[in-house]
């Protein structure tokens, strides 16, 4: 009977030496106590990150013209959300991997019409106000092309936008009811009512903050705060935490790809980085089956350092 040749990459020799007792319960208990003590000591010494949440109310009070500018851009369809594609709308193909339109295949799962959902809908939910009510009626009775003309005329003049005495003013002509919308929406945002109106579900326990978060991220205020805290994607932000706390260091490889070409300049970086990480994960998963790569531990010989006493004898 012929025996198969020993394959060093795959086969393990039979252990013929002695055995030592090993108490896994004792080791587990020691680890639990040590980690528990370390947690209490470090929490006492350093505390935990506890930044206040950023709301639309904060934004509209800190930077009212940035808010109003974003609101008109939600109406003219030039914000990131308005042009994102799936899962929010059909304005573009969304994230693509080469010819594969992955986002489009998933479809519009969270439909968002930025003009209706971020501007007109919340305004309609406000208590009766004669000027706003008349403006909304004028808007509804106008043709789509007339509405577009009003929005475009307001947009053309938005560089003249000022905020004075709690009012947004723009030197726009033939903008129809749009100036009333933008001014009232800004006042609504500054009062905090827009935060509530944008939360989906409409009940006290609702936790769906998709709309307020998208609206916030369309403006310049959130990005400005994120940049100060090194939280932007281009600043390795995925692995950073607010203030001086350590963050998610284990995401270094995921965020690394966003810093280098071609990902750093690609409009489809999210799906490309995801695909790269999936490929690397599959390689890691099948490492024991890949000749050459599976031989690395045997060639590097770190195991001989760990079990040096055994190999010395």
């Amino acid at each position: 009977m012929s025996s198969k040749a020993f394959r060093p990459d795959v086969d393990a020799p039979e252990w013929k030496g002695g055995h030592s007792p090993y108490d896994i319960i004792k080791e587990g208990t020691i680890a639990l106590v040590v980690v528990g003590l370390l947690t209490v000591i470090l929490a006492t010494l350093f505390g935990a990150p506890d930044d206040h949440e950023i709301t639309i109310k904060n934004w509209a009070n800190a930077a009212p013209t940035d808010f109003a500018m974003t609101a008109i851009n939600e109406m003219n369809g030039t914000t990131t959300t308005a042009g994102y594609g799936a899962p929010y709308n059909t304005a573009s193909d969304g994230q693509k991997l080469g010819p594969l339109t992955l986002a489009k295949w998933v479809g519009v799962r969270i439909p968002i019409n930025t003009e209706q959902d971020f501007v007109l809908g919340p305004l309609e939910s406000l208590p009766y106000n004669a000027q706003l009510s008349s403006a909304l009626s004028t808007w509804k009775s106008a043709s789509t092309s007339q509405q577009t003309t009003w929005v475009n005329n307001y947009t053309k003049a938005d560089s003249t936008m000022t905020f004075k005495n709690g009012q947004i003013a723009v030197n726009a002509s033939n903008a129809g009811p749009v100036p009333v919308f933008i001014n009232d929406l800004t006042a609504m945002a500054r009062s905090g009512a827009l935060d509530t109106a944008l939360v989906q579900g409409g009940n006290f326990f609702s936790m769906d903050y998709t709309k307020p978060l998208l609206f916030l991220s369309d403006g310049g205020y959130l990005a400005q705060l994120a940049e100060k805290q090194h939280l932007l994607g281009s600043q390795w932000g995925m692995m950073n935490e607010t203030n001086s706390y350590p963050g998610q260091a284990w995401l270094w490889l995921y965020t690394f790809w966003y810093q280098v070409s071609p990902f750093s300049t690609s409009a489809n970086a999210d799906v490309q980085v995801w695909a790269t990480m999936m490929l690397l994960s599959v390689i890691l998963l099948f490492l024991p089956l890949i000749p050459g790569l599976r031989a690395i531990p045997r060639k590097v010989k770190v195991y001989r350092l760990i079990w040096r006493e055994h190999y010395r004898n």
Partner: protein
Amino acid sequence: MAWFSFLAALIPLDGYGHYLHWGVINISVANFIVIVLMVVTFIAALLLPFPGRNRRKESK
């Protein structure tokens, strides 16, 4: 509120973080310290003798 100020951290880390730059690499000092500690722990795990080694030797 003052009544729970005793819960505040002894060494607060609420100021803006410090960052280190080397070319494309941009890392916070806090993350760098954590990574260095992980590497030190790994090297210590490799080099330090197993606890109870002498006891096992004697019992052989």
